[in-house]
């Protein structure tokens, strides 16, 4: 008996350690509700701050439960005074961590502006594009048709600027897809 115990003891200890660690993790994950807390929607003040540049005409943004094939979509908001819709998307830039950008579109689908909520782009290059308010303001008043012509990529930071344009393209598509459900048009 002694010999076989020596043989299976390592496996037994390893299984025990794995079980205990994974059990504890599952426990904390579910009890603390990490999933819900992690991607909790933004607070009221944050929404107001982001809406100021993305959808200026909106007085208040309300969260709308809406699904879209585009899995990059994180949240959809409706303007309380019916001024339009704001969508928050995960946008792939230069860094492996995607940027979170809110695009604001008015009732008939014309883009009003965008706000970069969080990003991990390279300082001095990607971040320079994001901090360049004049460049981002170029997106205001655009429709899907003239997206490719009106906005050009920033040389040296092509991945970041192309990423923002691709996000705007996705925002237009989501608007078409969800405008019935969200704005009741």
């Amino acid at each position, binding site marked *: 008996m002694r010999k076989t115990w020596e043989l*299976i003891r390592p496996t*037994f200890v*390893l299984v025990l350690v794995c079980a205990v660690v*994974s059990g504890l993790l599952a426990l904390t994950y579910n009890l603390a509700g990490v999933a819900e807390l992690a991607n909790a929607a933004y607070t009221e003040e944050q929404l107001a701050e982001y809406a100021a540049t993305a959808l200026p005409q909106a007085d208040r943004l309300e969260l709308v439960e809406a699904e879209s094939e585009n899995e990059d979509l994180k949240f959809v908001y409706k303007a309380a005074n019916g001024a339009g819709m704001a969508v928050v998307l995960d946008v792939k830039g230069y860094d492996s961590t995607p940027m979170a950008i809110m695009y604001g579109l008015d009732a008939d689908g014309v883009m009003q502006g965008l706000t970069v909520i969080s990003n991990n782009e390279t300082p001095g290059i990607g971040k320079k594009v994001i901090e360049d308010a004049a460049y981002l303001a170029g997106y205001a008043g655009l429709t899907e048709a003239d997206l490719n012509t009106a906005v050009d990529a920033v040389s040296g930071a092509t991945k970041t600027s192309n990423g923002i344009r691709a996000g705007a393209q996705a925002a237009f598509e989501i608007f078409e897809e969800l405008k019935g459900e969200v704005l009741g048009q």
Partner: protein
Amino acid sequence: MDYLIPILLFVGLGLLAGVLLTVFSRVFAVEQDERAVQIREVLPGANCGACGYAGCDAYAEVVAGGARTNACIPGGDAVSRKVSAIMGTAFEDVVEQAAAVRCNGSCGVTGTRFAYAGEMSCAACSRLYGGQGSCPSGCIGLGDCVKVCPFGAIAVKDGVAVVDRSRCTGCGLCAAACPKGLIEVFDATQKVEVLCSSVLPARATMAACKAGCIGCKKCERACPSGAIHVQNNHAAIDHSKCTGCGICAEGCPTHCIQIL
């Protein structure tokens, strides 16, 4: 449900890992002669080849197979005693060896023919007109020997390599690394050595280096045991005959024969 799958997944992975590791380490165990592993632990690990084999691993296997236990010169008596203890054979003495640089051309006594600013290695420098030193067969002093010495027993002082014979184990790696072939490994107990290998005739040697051997044969005539002879314009000691009396050193006009 949210707890079951993670725990089951990890218990499965842990089980798989444990079983595979135990099975693999049993079934695919490599039979290694236990003694070879112990011997390898004892050997210094310099892989110098002084034992005549391709390195410590090779020598460990051969000794486990029954080769002589005192071939490891760097290890000296200590390692030989441990190896013979592991093998259960009688302890055999090791003739300790030590190296010496047969040149004492420090900056004070000799100069350079040109300022070398290429790769800082003797091998590279010696390819350029025999090296920067005034004496073509002298020590270049860029430390190729220092780089290979696993025991830190050799250092370049004032432009010439000098061996600390107390730390030197006689592994011979420096002798192989020296492009000028100045380093000789001989019996550690020997005390006297000619610190010059100049092949130039007397007048040229004197011009190149104040401490060079000019081949005057004074030492050859004075040596009671006939251990020192001048060949190829410089004196050389036959260490099997040398008794270490040091008479040759006293008589040498340029003091290039020294007591180590």
